[in-house]
């Protein structure tokens, strides 16, 4: 059994990400620790503005927000919802609350966890409109375990796409994914590399490694000059897939996170992304 860390803003429970965390915890027979980032000024808030009236309606039942008007009460309600969902899905859970600025302590928590699940909206209350928010970005850069960024609920996974460039980081991500989420072993695997090479780099070696874990493996080279853009185009055509990538801050991912005129490319992807760094 493994230990998964679910990270969320205590005021705004990311139910889609929580659903993904529960899906993984159930399949991996893991325990879930909820790390709730609280607003230190919560107690002084007289009223809660912009509260989503139905944040987790379909997975947690109708939320009872009547009477929960302060931020503190909303935070308590969200923690209660988290516990309730875990209980409903028979997942062993614990909760820890941290101040919104206590990222150092959260990173220590990541050291003692096998995996982090965070929503794309994981952000401090004052950064809700930014992507990736400082909190999520810090986890992607400094977490001491792999991170899954989930933007939608996981209904069905048909295939796993390994974004591969032959780097140590990309292969490390593939290995960690295989150790931590072994229940995807029967899914179709696509190893995709962007570039002008005739075949994926070190195909014999990567194939030998993957054959130990998966039975259906395909390889695809996408030709193009802009790796991030080509990869994005490749991924946006696929539904029901899980994306696995190497280090944040390098190669594809740093470009995927770059602000573009519309929105960072990764924000447009609806599939869960597994990211780790070597």
């Amino acid at each position, binding site marked *: *059994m493994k*230990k998964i860390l679910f990270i969320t803003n205590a005021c705004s429970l990311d139910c889609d990400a929580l659903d993904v965390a529960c899906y993984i915890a159930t399949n991996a027979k893991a325990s879930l620790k909820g790390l709730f980032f609280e607003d230190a000024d919560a107690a002084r808030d007289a009223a809660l503005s912009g509260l989503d009236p139905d944040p987790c309606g379909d997975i947690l039942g109708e939320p009872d927000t009547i009477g929960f008007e302060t931020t503190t009460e909303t935070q308590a309600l969200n923690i209660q919802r988290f516990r309730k969902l875990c209980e409903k899905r028979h997942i062993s859970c614990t909760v820890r609350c941290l101040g919104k600025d206590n990222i150092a302590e959260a990173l220590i928590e990541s*050291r003692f966890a*096998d995996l982090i699940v965070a929503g794309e909206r994981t952000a401090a209350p004052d950064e809700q409109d930014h992507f990736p928010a400082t909190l999520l970005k810090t986890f992607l850069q400094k977490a001491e375990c792999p991170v899954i960024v989930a933007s939608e609920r996981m209904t069905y996974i048909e295939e796993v796409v390994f974004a591969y460039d032959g780097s140590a980081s990309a*292969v490390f991500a593939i290995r960690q994914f295989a*150790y931590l989420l072994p229940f995807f072993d029967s899914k179709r695997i696509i190893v995709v590399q962007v570039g002008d090479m005739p075949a994926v780099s070190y195909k014999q070696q990567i194939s030998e490694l993957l054959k130990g874990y998966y039975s259906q493996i395909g390889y695809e080279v996408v030709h193009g000059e802009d790796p991030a853009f080509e990869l994005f185009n490749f991924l946006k055509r696929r539904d029901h897939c899980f994306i696995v990538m190497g280090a944040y801050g390098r190669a594809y991912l740093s470009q995927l996170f770059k602000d573009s005129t519309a929105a960072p490319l990764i924000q447009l992807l609806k599939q869960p992304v597994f990211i780790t760094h*070597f």
Partner: protein
Amino acid sequence: MIKVLIASEGTGISPAVFEFVKQMNAQTPVLLAGLFLPESHFIDLLTRNAYLAQALPCDKKMHRELVEIVYEFINFCKDNNICYSLYSDSGRFELPELQYETRYADLLIVGEELLKTGAAGSWCGRCLADLIRDSECPVIVIPQTFTAPTKNIIAFDGTAAAVYALKQFSYLLPGFAVNETLFMAVDNHIAESAAVLNEKQLAELVKSHYPCYRIEVEAGNILKYFSGEMNEAGTVIIAGSYRTLPGFSAGCANLAPDIQCQGAPLFIASY
């Protein structure tokens, strides 16, 4: 099925290494990838300039020895129902190739004879440090004589490296992780605090990976297990990097001291 890379410098694979692989395979099936190099010290290869192709001498005698060892390897795998693959080289080998092989493997197994220097019988600390630095997957060093693993000792100093190693060991060798496990606070200059062993987070993590764990808060000297002063049969030592081992200088492989092995396999995962 994990891919295990086994390296030989052409003089033979120690029976202890084969025995360890057999025990691993009994717990979790492995794909054993044999990497056979001509007579050139494996560690020498690792420590040389990464960008220069190495022209290694390979005469008929060496070639014959290599063929013999390859057959020994194949027979071992067939006799024990172990999946295998081979990588051999006839005289030219480049360091990047070797590093790539560790990139595409889950675990590298080396016999302690590859780390020994001279007649002293101790492990070359610098060689060990270089090996760990250059390998992109965890490394396990198998002594020439050892007993089947029944106990794990985790050299723990609270650092990211130490936690990373204990996680990787449990992912790769879950059959051994269920054995009795002792977390030993190590007394070295980079240890954050022996009190870290009491951390709730550690307990939360390890109970899921090491069901029979015990924490020894009193800082101990892990090297006693190597010197024979505390020699328990069937022990596997797990460390986060060579720096987790007391006496090894942080960040300077040249100062890594030689250590004497007394029968305990050493698993190291570099972070």
